[in-house]
């Protein structure tokens, strides 16, 4: 019986989305013996977590968690990873789906050793989506140092240009293949897990919060990139207008969340994210004044509550119960004045700060771009799971706003639900 380690396989599982939830579902299913296709639209795995500087509440870099998962994928022959891939169509029913997946060309093959010669040769620069446009990168690039698959990407902008040729000629391993064409695959799978994640809610929609009008108003995800060692400032938190080290920062909680004009639900992570980002600032600027404007601070569970208690002890972190509803910029200094009513004292506060961080929430990707399948979603775009029917399931933040640990728990559960679909057949 020693050769019967694998579970009885009666079909494959497709996991859509290679963020932390998708990775978890794929690994959990594959490690009990199921064949899994993991489809990711970016050229790399890791999703939003790969953009973070640190996890809360342990304040460790996300690479440590991702690295383990990448190793598990490498070691597992049952997982087939497809990057630059998007699901176009799903046909069939539980136990028997035919899924069309479109693969965009990477223009770099598996010969790539990440030597970087192509990037050195390339002259064109493009805005980095990974850094929310805060950094220009070469059009032949590695998404980030820890990227998996560890392989460069040639941006389609330079294909067919001299720059493309330069990159190709510079490569000592014949890894640049400018002739690559888009392909469409059909995968036959028994279950589909949608781990399509979230997008940061578009902060420009809150016209009273000044994002996009004033340079020194950024979002919490931009703050992650500013603080990250592999970010646009190599980890030094500097304000965008002049690169100055901010001496005062205001955090605007519920920027678009819990608001029927925007996202009616609580995005769950933003309070903890701002508390965490307060520690980023504190570690770099021991004297900086930090103002956190909130409606209610939500630090659920014992560990998060403790984290909040620790931050509260900092004499230069000020918590103000009152939502910021107005901002203005001093054009000569670039400083921002935020206005809120302190609901505890009943006084309106006009707080001038050097930088503002909008704690914008999560919007499920399915709300921005409809999923190409008959999946039931809530009015806000979250996938509503029908466990009795099985077949297609939402996992992680595609299902509800969640932190990493809850996403992983949920994603593990969805691996089991997907397996049940196959076994029940």
């Amino acid at each position, binding site marked *: 019986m020693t050769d019967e380690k694998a579970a009885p396989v009666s079909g494959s599982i497709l996991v859509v989305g290679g963020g932390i939830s998708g990775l978890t579902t794929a690994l959990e299913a594959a490690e009990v013996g199921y064949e899994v296709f993991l489809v990711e639209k970016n050229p790399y795995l890791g999703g939003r977590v790969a953009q973070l500087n640190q996890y809360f509440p342990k304040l460790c870099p996300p690479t440590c968690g991702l690295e383990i998962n990448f190793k598990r994928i490498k070691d597992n022959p049952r997982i087939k990873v497809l990057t630059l891939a998007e699901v176009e169509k799903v046909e069939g029913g539980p136990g028997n789906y035919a899924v069309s997946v479109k693969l965009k060309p990477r223009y770099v093959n598996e010969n790539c050793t990440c030597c970087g010669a192509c990037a050195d040769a390339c002259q064109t620069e493009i805005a980095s989506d990974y850094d929310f446009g805060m950094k220009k990168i070469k059009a032949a690039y590695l998404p980030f140092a820890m990227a998996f698959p560890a392989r460069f990407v040639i941006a389609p902008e330079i294909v067919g240009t001299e720059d493309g040729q330069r990159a190709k000629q510079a490569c000592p391993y014949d890894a640049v293949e400018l002739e690559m064409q888009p392909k469409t695959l059909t995968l036959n799978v028994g279950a589909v897990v949608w781990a399509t994640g979230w997008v940061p809610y578009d902060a420009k929609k809150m016209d*009273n919060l000044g994002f996009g009008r004033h340079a020194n108003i950024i979002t919490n995800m931009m703050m992650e990139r500013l603080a990250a060692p592999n970010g646009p400032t190599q980890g030094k938190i500097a304000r965008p207008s002049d690169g100055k080290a901010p001496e005062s920062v205001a955090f605007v909680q*519920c920027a678009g969340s*819990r*608001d*029927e*004009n*925007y996202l009616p639900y609580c995005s769950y992570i933003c309070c903890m994210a701002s508390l965490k980002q307060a520690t980023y600032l504190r570690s770099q600027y021991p004297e900086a004044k930090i103002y956190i404007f909130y*409606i*209610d601070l939500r630090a659920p569970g014992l560990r998060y509550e403790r984290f909040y208690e620790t931050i509260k002890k900092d004499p230069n972190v000020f918590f103000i*119960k*009152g*939502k*910021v*509803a*107005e901002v203005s910029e001093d054009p000569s200094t670039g400083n921002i004045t935020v*206005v*809120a*009513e*302190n*609901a505890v004292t*009943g*006084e*309106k506060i*006009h707080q001038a700060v050097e930088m503002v961080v909008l704690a914008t929430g999560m919007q499920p990707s399915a709300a921005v771009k409809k999923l190409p399948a008959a999946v039931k979603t809530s009015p806000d775009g979250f996938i509503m799971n029908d466990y009795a029917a099985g077949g297609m399931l939402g996992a992680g933040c595609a299902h509800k706003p969640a932190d990493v640990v809850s996403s992983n728990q949920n994603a593990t559960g969805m691996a089991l639900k997907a397996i049940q679909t196959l076994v029940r057949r």
Partner: protein
Amino acid sequence: MAERILVEPDLKFIKDLGILGGDDLKKCYQCATCSVACPISPDNKPFPRKEMIASSWGLKDKVVKSADPWLCHNCGDCSTRCPRKAKPADVLAAIRAQAIVEYSRPRWLAEAVNDPKKLPILIAIPVALFLVVGSITGLLNFKPDLSGGIAHYKFFSTWLVDMHMVPAMLFAVTVLALGLKRFVGDIHQNALAEGKTDQQTIEVAGFVQAVIRVIPTILTHKKFSECTENKDRYIAHFLTFWSFVGLFIVTSVIFLVLYGSYLLPTGPLHGPWAQINPIKWLANISGIALIVGTGMMIKSRLNKPDQKSAYKDWFLIGIAFGLGLTGMLTELTRIAGWAPVTFAMYFLHLICIFFLIAYLPFTKLAHLAYRTAAMVYSEYAGRKFVK
């Protein structure tokens, strides 16, 4: 140990606010967006966030006996920004309606004006008075001699008109004056208790100076024009306000000329006045402005699902619009020579006037007294509500 406060919620107050249009009050989660969104809310103890929580807790005295709900001009910026759609603007409007009931006497009349079921009684009062008093005195003549042309006084004597309207006005002024006296005392106590003023007492000289400073703000509708939402309401209210001023001048001149002319050897000068008379111009322009202004109000209330329109709102707009409409129709049908129609219109017009005057202290129109008093008080108290 911290001071102990026993909260005694007035549950009826909360319920009544709901009937008056504040039924989304409980959705409020106290984020205070409204206080910042409000273009005219002061920095010190801004509104309407504190009114939302006090109302939700049923603390009637804290809001009804405060000047702040009256500083609001109901522009609706707070309701637009409200993340919970709790409609603070409508809650403040409902608080004001409750304050009007609170400060006017007799109480039963105030409650009747706010109760749609009592409307037939309110209409029956002037109708019965006109018919009974008119028949007994013979001042109401259903078959007048119209040989000299149609003139409304031949049908409904000016004596009969003033026999009702003058006492009605004295009644309204008395009710309002008594109400204002209590109101100003209460809002001063509230301001002291909440730290909204440094003035310990109300000095007459200073108060009069505040009146003088506030009048231009009211005449130009300066506060109204600061609102970004509902800009059309500013124009509508401006037209309606000035049409009332115009009609008040017209009525006063006609009143003085009529009773003055009894001293003349030629006898009293009755209407209708000639169309070339400047007073007639003012009357016609004001009448049209009233119809247009109130018509805009009706239109905007019908088109705004965001804003609640309660009975109290329709009651006053209905009277004002009816007043303008019946007034203009009375004139037009007289010119057309349709005697029975024009007399009927005139009768309706007089009912509208009676409504407006006699019920004034109990309707939304009482805001002309309470809001003015609140604005003057806040000016006097040094409450900076001008940004």
